[in-house]
């Protein structure tokens, strides 16, 4: 990794040490495996086993009867063909992808913009913005959900009141959760509001590692702000940007709690389902575990497809 070696150290607590002790431990040493054992074991029990079960169930007919002991029979790709033949699945998939991409793109754009903005602010304003970011970041998702439902409440919500006050009379008493489009607008605002602080802090932390003298030299060479941003800032913060982008896509595609709880307001669950809530509905509410598992596997596959390019690029850059 070039970032740490060519630039000033990130900060006092992290002295530079790029290469782990590489050649010394070539002989078979059991110690690393012993050290990994507890972590690997608990992950295997908690997620490995359920994942295996889930993969098995995806190829079985598995509903409530099997839940109560009837042996499950293997049905090949039946569950997958049923999912892929269901128009509700495709609608949900499209909705999820659109929601994920819009949220991830806006979060990254606002987050990067916010981080760069931070470097240009006078001290008190910068402290204020960082405090605001910190508070938003710290808010538990359930607390945020409650206050957003209140902000967008149709009776006493501040948004409807403000919009009506601005002359949009139709917005007085408008129920945001009764229309899929405005439902997702609120959900996106909430998700973006929650995710931006992490991006701001991470990008800001790595932007402040950029060597001042490099920027000065490039200014003397006549580079303007945009050119500096593209040719110095972006390459420097690239590993961080990649990681955050991967995480944002993963997190936004599997968004569940926010949608699940906002759905309780509207009564239009079918039209507002995303992949996560769809799987939940088919499996836990509908009792069709086989189909739900198949859908979940398809969901995993899509996430891998979406992020694979970034993941490989990231692993190459980090030379792990």
């Amino acid at each position: 990794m070039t970032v740490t070696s060519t630039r000033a150290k990130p900060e006092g607590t992290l002295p530079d040490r790029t290469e782990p002790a590489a050649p010394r431990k070539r002989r078979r040493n059991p110690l690393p495996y012993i050290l990994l054992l507890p972590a690997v074991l608990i992950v295997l029990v908690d997620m490995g086993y359920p994942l295996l079960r889930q993969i098995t169930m995806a190829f079985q007919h598995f509903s409530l009867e099997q839940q109560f002991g009837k042996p499950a029979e293997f049905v090949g790709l039946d569950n997958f063909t049923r999912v892929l033949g269901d128009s509700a699945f495709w609608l949900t998939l499209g909705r999820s992808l659109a929601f994920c991409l819009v949220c991830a793109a806006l979060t990254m754009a606002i987050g990067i913009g916010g981080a760069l903005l931070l470097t240009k602010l006078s001290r008190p304003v910068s402290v204020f913005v960082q405090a605001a970011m910190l508070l938003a970041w710290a808010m538990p998702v359930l607390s945020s959900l409650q206050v957003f439902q209140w902000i967008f409440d149709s009776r006493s919500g501040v948004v409807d009141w403000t919009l009506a006050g601005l002359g949009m009379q139709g917005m007085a008493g408008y129920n945001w959760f009764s229309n899929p489009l405005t439902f997702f607008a609120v959900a996106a605002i909430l998700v973006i509001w929650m995710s931006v602080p992490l991006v701001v802090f991470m990008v800001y932390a790595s932007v402040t590692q950029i060597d001042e003298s490099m920027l000065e030299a490039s200014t003397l060479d006549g580079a303007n702000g945009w050119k500096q941003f593209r040719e110095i800032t972006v390459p420097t913060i690239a590993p961080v940007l990649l990681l955050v982008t991967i995480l944002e896509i993963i997190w936004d595609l599997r968004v569940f709690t926010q949608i699940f709880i906002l759905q309780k307001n509207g009564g239009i669950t079918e039209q507002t389902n995303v992949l996560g809530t769809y799987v939940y509905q088919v499996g836990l509410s509908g009792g069709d575990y086989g189909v739900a598992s198949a859908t979940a596997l398809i969901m995993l596959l899509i996430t891998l497809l979406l992020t694979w390019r970034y993941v490989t690029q990231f692993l190459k850059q980090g030379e792990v």
Partner: protein
Amino acid sequence: MALKPSPVRRSAANITGLVFGLLWIFPVYWLVNNSLVTDDALQSRTPSFLPLDFTWAHYETVLHDSRFWSALRMSFGVALIVVVAALLFAFFASMALSRFRFKGRKIIIISVLVIQMIPAEAMFISQYKMIDSWHLLNSVLGLSLLYVGASVPFTIWMLKGFVDGVPVELEESAMIDGCSRMGAFFRVTFPLLGSGLVASGIFAFLAAWNEYTLALVLLSSDNSKTLPLWIQGFSGQNQATDWGGIMAGSTLMALPVIILFVIVQKKMAQGLVAGAVKG
């Protein structure tokens, strides 16, 4: 970054920053503000922008609710187990990944990232059955067990960045002085990870504190609810939603996290960046 921004540019940036900050702080302000006004003010069509009709009544309601206290105990119990176990396991694992080159190392590192992609909703059924077969439904232990597995990968990711930052030479010289390898890890490296442990511990805490869906699936009895379940139940239980109570409860739930975040703010972003930059 730019050498000397012109005063005009700087004030334009400051105004943008101010608006940005206000937008982001508004929901937090609105939460606290609305937890402090009377029911009449809440019911009014005109929102109250300042807590002029001030009252502590909503906090009194919440603090006299025994379900709140039981949820608080439950949430703290689960979070405590998760933080301790996840940190310990992740410390061992990140020592292995940072200090050794061994077969399977790369696979472990990739798994840490890929595990994040597995859709949790699909595992609930088998996770439920597993915990049920161990008779651990509705228990602190059952829920913690699953949360530890869920937070260990991310904790390893963060902690490894900090372990990479501690020079291996320190351990080596301790070993020359007669320390065992494990002794060197614990006596030399562990104390130097202070901020890394705090930062990744907080993420584990937060994950446990915030989690809603798995808790919903595993905890059905009334006196084993965590705070997220309690606050969500709060809005459903009465015919007329008690928004004041919900706001007060949500504020109380956010308070410990906000305090933690304020204490260790800087270290968290740095921890994430360290993980990203050092791979």
